[in-house]
């Protein structure tokens, strides 16, 4: 699974180039603003856009209320079929052997020993029916249940004053969230989807479900959790998607 991104990198790069080409050709007069797509590190406009992204992260952190809950819905409102989403097609989802799987724990924690799924399931669990909002704009209501992340962080003796919680995934995806959002009561390490254990498309054996953030901040196939004060970024975040992406 380590070479997952390597295998798809050429395809991703090709798709991105196609997007840029199409965007560039179609922008016409607007493309005179050379470097307005976040990929030109020396362009003044792109640097201003990146600075605004960081400013917006600070505004969003200030707007975040740790006690405000995302709206919950009834079972009748759940979307079926639920839409698959990843940076690769559904046919390429990793199939993880849950029995052999271990969750690595690192960074500012008292106990770094890895967790098995059985050990994780001994922590209290909660379920939620919430709206999953994708950065693309579409949204769907789904049901997840699992261990609130704050219970897990407490159990490993994490420094709860640290700034970030980072996720490394077995599909080579990465993401990270702020500690305040990590401690939110609806932020869970999900093991079930629609009242049944997660299956490969939905992130088996473990995925983050965080209804106070956009969909891409809900990493699947989690392999490692790290508590840190060093900005970890993430797969999409490093390319220019707004890091905080709070709802």
């Amino acid at each position: 699974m380590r070479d997952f991104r390597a295998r798809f990198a050429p395809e991703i790069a090709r798709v991105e180039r196609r997007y840029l080409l199409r965007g560039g050709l179609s922008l016409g007069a607007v493309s005179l603003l050379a470097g307005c797509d976040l990929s030109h590190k020396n362009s003044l406009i792109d640097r201003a856009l990146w600075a605004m992204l960081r400013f917006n992260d600070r505004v969003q952190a200030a707007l975040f209320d740790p006690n405000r809950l995302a709206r919950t819905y009834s079972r009748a409102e759940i979307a079926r079929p639920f839409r698959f989403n990843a940076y690769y097609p559904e046919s390429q989802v990793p199939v993880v052997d849950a029995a052999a799987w271990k969750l690595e724990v690192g960074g500012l924690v008292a106990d770094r020993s890895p967790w098995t799924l059985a050990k994780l399931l001994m922590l209290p669990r909660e379920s939620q029916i919430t709206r999953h909002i994708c950065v693309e704009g579409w949204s769907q209501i789904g049901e997840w249940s699992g261990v609130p992340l704050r219970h897990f962080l407490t159990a490993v003796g994490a420094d709860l004053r640290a700034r970030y919680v980072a996720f490394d995934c077995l599909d080579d995806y990465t993401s990270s969230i702020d500690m305040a959002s990590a401690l939110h009561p609806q932020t869970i390490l999900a093991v079930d989807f629609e009242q049944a254990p997660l299956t490969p498309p939905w992130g088996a054996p473990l995925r983050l479900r965080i209804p106070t953030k956009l969909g891409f901040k809900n990493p699947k196939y989690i392999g490692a959790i790290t508590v840190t004060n060093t900005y970890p970024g993430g797969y999409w975040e490093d390319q220019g998607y707004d890091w905080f992406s709070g709802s």
Partner: protein
Amino acid sequence: MSERERPYPVILRLTHWVGAAAMIVMILSGWQIYNASPILPFVFPVGLGGWLAAGIAWHIAAMWVLMADGVVYLVWAVASGHFQRDFWPLSVAAVGRDLGAALRLRLAHDTGRYNAVQKLLYGGVIAASVLAVLTGLSMWKPVQLGWLSAAFGGYPVARVLHFCLMSAITIFLFVHVVMVGVVPSTLRRMVG
């Protein structure tokens, strides 16, 4: 200098042009965002940023400019009596009369006072812009601003409303630019 030749107040000219630039950036970057997950069976042929992340970056950067500009304009328009003086009174009959005259190309457009069609269109685009900002905020923060999201019927409904408001503002922009072409003296007053 007669009333009909004098430039508009400097704050009106400033907020008009800053708001126009911010609104155009919002519309073009909004098209980029729309194209990532269209709600109608078409995509826009142009978009600002070239891909979704850059479209969003433009959108939430220009959002601050548009909101600050809008607040300055609205405070000034209320405090200076601009709204009361230039937008009131407005009646259905007057709109019908002036719209009929406009369509027969017989409407005086530059008398130093807004005619009824201008009052309706300018008032309408201001209201649409305010609602576009509010629906946008409700989609940006559907949890933290849950009350605002609920007021618009929830996230998916706000998304459709936001699109409709963009459409209305875009149509206004076309009509507005055509009318400025018909009556260019209004442009001189707005430039100063």
